[in-house]
């Protein structure tokens, strides 16, 4: 009853569906990489799967990042107010840590699943 063309159709549909399902599955979920910028330059992209500390030279002094169990935080910073340190751990795509005095920006990459597109503050 199924013609050859019908079979091709079903096969293509399933393939395309599987592709998009897989893509969705792979990029949703927790972020696995963080992008680090100092000033307006990207410095490095780090995997959150490997625990470590990263020493950065910010505009005003040193900033130390810590990666542990899929999360990242600023462990130490030379800045005065320590807003970056107090932001604590981030692990979800779109989340950021900013140190304005040192011009350090850490962003978790991946598809944003957070409830808001941006936050007014």
């Amino acid at each position: 009853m199924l013609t050859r063309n019908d079979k091709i159709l079903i096969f293509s549909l399933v393939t395309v569906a599987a592709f998009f399902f897989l893509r969705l599955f792979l990029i949703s979920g927790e972020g696995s990489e963080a992008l680090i910028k100092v000033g307006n330059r990207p410095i490095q992209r780090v995997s959150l799967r490997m625990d470590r500390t990263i020493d950065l030279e910010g505009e005003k002094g040193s900033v130390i990042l810590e990666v542990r169990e899929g999360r990242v935080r600023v462990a130490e910073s030379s800045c005065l107010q320590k807003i970056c340190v107090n932001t604590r751990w981030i692990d979800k795509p779109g989340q950021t840590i900013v140190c304005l005095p040192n011009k350090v920006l850490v962003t978790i990459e991946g598809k944003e699943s957070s409830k808001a597109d941006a936050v007014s503050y």
Partner: protein
Amino acid sequence: MGRFRILIFLLLLFFICGCGKKEYSRVEFLMDTVVEIKVYHSRKAEAGEAIDSSMKEIKRVEQKMSRFLPASEVSRINKQALSAGKSASGLKEGWIPVSSELFSLLEESVRLSNLTKGCFDVTVCPLWKIWKFEGENIEVPSKREIETALELVAYKNMILQDGKIKFAKKGMGIDLGGIAKGYAVDAAINVLKEKNVKSAMVNAGGDIYVLGRKQGKPWRIGIRHPRKEGEILGIVEVEDRAIVTSGDYERFFFTEGKRYHHIVNPKTGYPAEECQSVTIVAKKATFADGLATGVFVLGPKEGMALIESLEEVEGVIVNKEGEVSVSSGLVSKIEYVNQK
């Protein structure tokens, strides 16, 4: 016939699966904060060019309006105002020429000052100089210092006429800190519009404008919880609107058990204490920025009455006890996430 059907079906499928507009974004440190521009566009090159141009526009505004850059127009005016009394300055009776762009912005500031009964005031410069929130100072200025500075703070003593500015007292100056970020956001959005962008967001340190809709839906903008770092109080759905928040949590210091933050009441010379945060939703970020500061100083009751009296202006106020009030036009559009 069958092959055709397959082809059409596959084509349709690809269209549905996101061959439309893609998101392009960039983040830069500008205007003493983090600026993010996000554009939805079908062409990568054009999106990139639009983002480039609007980032450049923000840099241009910063270079003109910042009080901290010695070469800015605002710095030049403040310097000339100091020497205005001296005949050597060559200025007739203290009039200082102003560019038409800055002149309009100063006129807008005066409108905001009138609306907020002077609670928003661009002549706060002398107060900023003694509080030094931008520096590393953690000292409260003496009562005398504040009294002296207050004598030089009054927008009514700033006279604007025919593209020129004059100050009634020597030592006065302007500080556009309460409005410049909003102005830069509007300027960046204008550039994006010129580049034919239909869907975009410009976010300069929490001063946001959203252009059009985001992939067919309104943008969802969170309002920061004033007492819980990293948490959202609620979310509002908006399109073609500016949303700007003034909060007491941004720049502050503790001394002798008391918290001093950066929104200084131009009438008392001390930080305003009636609110924790004020969010304004309006058609222009410039207006929203100035109004958020003015309403913060005005206080929750009078502030909300002002918001309600203005057309196409909505707002959310968190008072000093942490109680949230929402303007009538926003009640149905806010989704609470973390109210208490």
